[in-house]
């Protein structure tokens, strides 16, 4: 009986401990996660463009890539928590100095990705082309302002 109680207590303690550690993500891991999501977005963009510009077939895959882009795009705004501007990152301090402007640009990129998704879903090639350029411009716009280019 006593042993059972101890087990329960220990389990609760461990749960509490695990809970604590997820609440305080290490900045290094937050940066790692941000990079992983960014790379995933890049990979979908690359795959999308290979189809979009007729270099491979798989027209039917287009929607999967743009769905993924749109879903990942909505995560961007929570990927830059305070304290993740130093260490192994190319993110510039300006992100945390002008959160409003940064938020506007992220929202604009979500919007352009949603438009791309709609164009693909409608099977409208000309609109897809145009929307893809707009998505690219929104990526470029943020990288230009908020990312250190070193290589």
């Amino acid at each position, binding site marked *: 009986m006593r042993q059972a109680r101890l087990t329960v207590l220990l389990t609760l303690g461990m749960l509490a401990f695990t809970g604590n550690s997820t609440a305080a993500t290490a900045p290094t891991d937050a940066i790692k996660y941000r990079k992983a999501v960014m790379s995933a*977005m*890049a*990979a*979908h*963009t*690359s*795959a*999308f*463009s290979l189809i979009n*510009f007729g*270099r491979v077939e798989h027209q039917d895959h287009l929607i999967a890539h743009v769905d993924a882009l749109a879903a990942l795009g909505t995560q961007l705004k929570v990927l830059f928590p305070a304290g993740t501007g130093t260490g192994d990152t190319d993110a510039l301090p300006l992100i945390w100095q002008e959160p409003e402007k940064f938020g506007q640009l992220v929202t604009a990129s979500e919007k352009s990705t949603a438009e791309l998704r709609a164009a693909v879903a409608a099977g409208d090639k000309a609109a897809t082309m145009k929307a*893809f*350029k707009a998505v*690219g411009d929104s*990526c*470029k716009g*943020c*990288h*230009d*302002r*908020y*990312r*250190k*280019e*070193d*290589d």
Partner: protein
Amino acid sequence: MAARPGLAAGSRTCVALLLCLVASAVAAASAEQLARGRYLVHAGGCISCHTADRDGAIPLAGGRRLETPFGIFYAPNLTPDRKTGIGGWSDTDFSAALRHGRAPDGSPYYPVFPYPAYAGISDADVAAMAAWLRSIPPVHNPVPAHELPWYLRSRWLMLGWNLLFFDPQPFQADPARDKDWNRGAYLVRHLGHCGECHTPRNLFGARDDSRELAGNAAGPDGGKVPGIRQDREQGLGRWTLDDMLLFLELGMLPNGDFAGSSMSAVIDDNTSQLTGDDRRAIAVYLQSLAPLDSP
């Protein structure tokens, strides 16, 4: 007698008609020249440097801050404002500035201005660029003085630099290569002056053309600039022609990432504005550059 007024009126009409014809011919030629000039100013990358790096900056009105190993330079105002821009410059002034790095008063510019590359721009292209720059609205925008160490403050020192490192040569097409390659060479080496960032520089800030376009560890704004020869690691060896075309048009790298920083301005103001043929010419030329560091 009765015939004279008629004759006179007839010849007046003739003269007027002739004048109209001449005037419209001149106007037509210059509209074409202006369009060409506008295109060339974009292809020459003038806008990326001569526009301040802030929201709402007026294109070509100057003020962009360039941090270099030699000090901080502020790009001048290229609008035709007489006080703060290049208003009142003759074609000769413009050509001397662009291709010889000389201000209208004869003083030399610092080679942060890419006149060593621009030296190969053709006469017709220089004239068209000057004509278009003259046609844009003048903007009064005084630009700060360069912030340089004391030993570099005299522009006249650059006469020595020119003597050592500047050998202006007109562009010579290579008859053994095709039209695309030659057009690409002109755009990459002269008008587009890619080597000003992508080629490393020596101790005196002169391009080391033995490593042309092989990458530059100390680029503008302190960044590392990648090589764009056919090296597989430090260059474009793994890129296809289509990869290059997409990058020059949209700024997308083959891995789906988008360029930022200095290159994003080059894409926005220069390469994305080019015709598809000119982008292709650039790619064809770059693909012909043998790797330097990897077999």
